């Protein structure tokens, strides 16, 4: 950049050229993202977790649900009595912890991404409709969202699961409902902000139809905050789903879900601490990775939102 500035100072013609060709958006984005060391670290960490999820079948030493009856509660390799066969030890049913944690990445990321994409699409659509349609739809949508916000997210998720029954799919449904209002409100607010701008008025004057106005004129300009919310929403969804699993209301055993792996680990606190330690550590690392990446994404996408 320093070199560019001297060029600008010395040769005005080049300056014009530089101004006329700004760096491509993706390059500018990457440059801004790279500035944030935490975000880059988070991205690496996240890449690791994603790789673990994708390659689970190749890197996991055992099947995540196979019970080794001869090695129940085997300690991890570095402890007395541990062996390289079960690097992180085995759980109360003799299942390999490492394999369950590796496969667990798949489950957690799947939950996080499903919740994120469903609430992104539905929440975004509801928010847009709420902002652009008449008072009746707006009031109805806003009220319902207010209602959902009034119930603590986990309590709402518990209620949904209590009605639908505990399962992986219902976890996703429950968490999606609990997190929908954030997307709706964000979309509604930014769409309302855009509606008053000149370019929208211009489009209206030209006679652009309602649907086109909504989808092509306004939507792209509201996406940045929604994308940031979506990125950070993945980590919240993972945490929430893990909490449900921990309470025995999420994915059911033997599914290798990190939260449900902790569900009955309380009895092992005294005797087998590794059964308690690793699944939670996996949740924490994944969530930290996503939050760091999401923070970086926010700073890079919208410098105005930067938390200085």
């Amino acid at each position, binding site marked *: 950049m320093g070199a560019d500035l001297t060029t600008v100072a010395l040769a005005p013609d080049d300056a014009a050229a530089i101004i006329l060709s700004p760096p491509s958006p993706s390059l500018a984005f990457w440059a801004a993202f790279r500035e944030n060391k935490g975000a880059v670290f988070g991205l690496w960490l996240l890449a690791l977790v994603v790789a673990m999820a994708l390659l689970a079948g190749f890197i996991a030493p055992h099947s995540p649900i196979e019970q080794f009856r001869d090695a129940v509660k085997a300690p991890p390799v570095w402890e007395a009595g541990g062996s390289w066969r079960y690097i992180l030890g085995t759980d109360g049913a003799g299942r390999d912890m490492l394999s369950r944690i590796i496969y667990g990445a798949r489950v957690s990321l799947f939950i996080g991404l499903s919740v994120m994409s469903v609430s992104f699409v539905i929440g975004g659509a509801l928010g847009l409709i709420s902002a652009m349609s008449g008072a009746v739809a707006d009031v109805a949508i806003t009220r319902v969202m207010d*209602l959902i916000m009034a119930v603590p997210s986990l309590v709402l998720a518990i209620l949904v699961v209590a009605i639908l029954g505990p399962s992986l799919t219902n976890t996703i449904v429950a968490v999606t409902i609990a997190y929908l209002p954030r997307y709706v409100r964000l979309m509604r607010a930014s769409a309302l902000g855009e509606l008053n701008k000149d370019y929208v008025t211009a489009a209206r004057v030209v006679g652009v139809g309602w649907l086109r106005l909504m989808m092509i004129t306004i939507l792209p300009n509201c996406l940045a905050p929604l994308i940031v919310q979506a990125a950070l929403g993945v980590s919240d969804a993972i945490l929430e789903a893990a909490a449900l699993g921990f309470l025995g209301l999420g994915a059911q055993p033997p599914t290798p879900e990190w939260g449900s792996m902790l569900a009955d680990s309380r009895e092992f606190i005294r005797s087998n601490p590794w059964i308690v330690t690793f699944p939670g550590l996996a949740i924490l690392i994944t969530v930290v990775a996503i939050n760091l990446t999401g923070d970086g994404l926010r700073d890079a996408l919208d410098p105005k939102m930067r938390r200085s």
Partner: protein
Amino acid sequence: MLAYFFRRILLTIPTFVALMFATFVAIRLVPGDPVEVRVGEHGMSPERLAMFRHELGLDLPVWKQFLSYVWQLLHGDFGTSLSTQQKVLTEFLTLFPATLELSFFALMFALLIGLPTGVIAAVRRGSYFDQALMSLATIGYSMPIFWWGLLLIMFVAVNLGLTPVSGRIDLIQYYFEPVTGFMTIDALLSDQPGAFLDALHHLVLPAVVLGTVPLAVIARMTRSSMLEVLSEDYVRTARAKGLSPLRVIGLHALRNALLPVVTVIGLQTSALLAGAVLTETIFSWPGVGKWLIDSISRRDYPALQGGVMLVSTVVILVNVMVDLLYGAINPRILHGR
């Protein structure tokens, strides 16, 4: 000012109606015969079924059922728990002080550490302290608190033996009738030496666990809000006048920086109640959160229905109070509209 307060309170009415409707519908979505779901009995004879159906008013048209449900709620009847045969409201009111006490100490923990560290981080921006605090805040914010609780029990309570593992007080050593429902206050009132300290001792770990996420949020929020205020003109003026840094930060900057923090604290109520479900489950804390989870495993749907209704009512009321408080301390809100 009054008009603002009045309007804000009126605005909650539609939410309450929607909440009543939602809980009314929710219990109807539970799979199984609606009478059996409510009575908690299975394989009833047709006569018994018909009797309960009539008793519960399930033979009426749905709109009449809804109206009578609303009528009951307005008269403080939130249903009867299947497992204890007690009124849901009575159970809730007995258990709620435990949750309130836990949440209060958790919030105190978060505020007492979050506010000062957030301010220091903002004043010493970019320092090692700032960087360390922000990294810790990211970790705290991302913490699965059920696991955090298990870890603390493992290290602090079991390995080091520094705190009790669960419960609110040592029931073998101390016993007294609940007066307020707040163990710390009741312990003080009981005149039993050591009871108060024991109650506090039991509170430490659960309060830390429940306060971790709010602590991270408050520290981050205080820091960024403080940074914004510190760059304002009036802070520069105060500095230029030669006021001591402590006075500038403590009096001029902090007061204004606290406004957004108050909102965040209000928003944390809902998060605290959700966190209480997990914290109470881990520490066998006899509060509302554990009660909700227990009623699911007992298939006590009326208790669950009434419980959700009551918890949400608390959240709505707290949000209203925070808004009113915010209006009171920030005159711009009142005059802006």
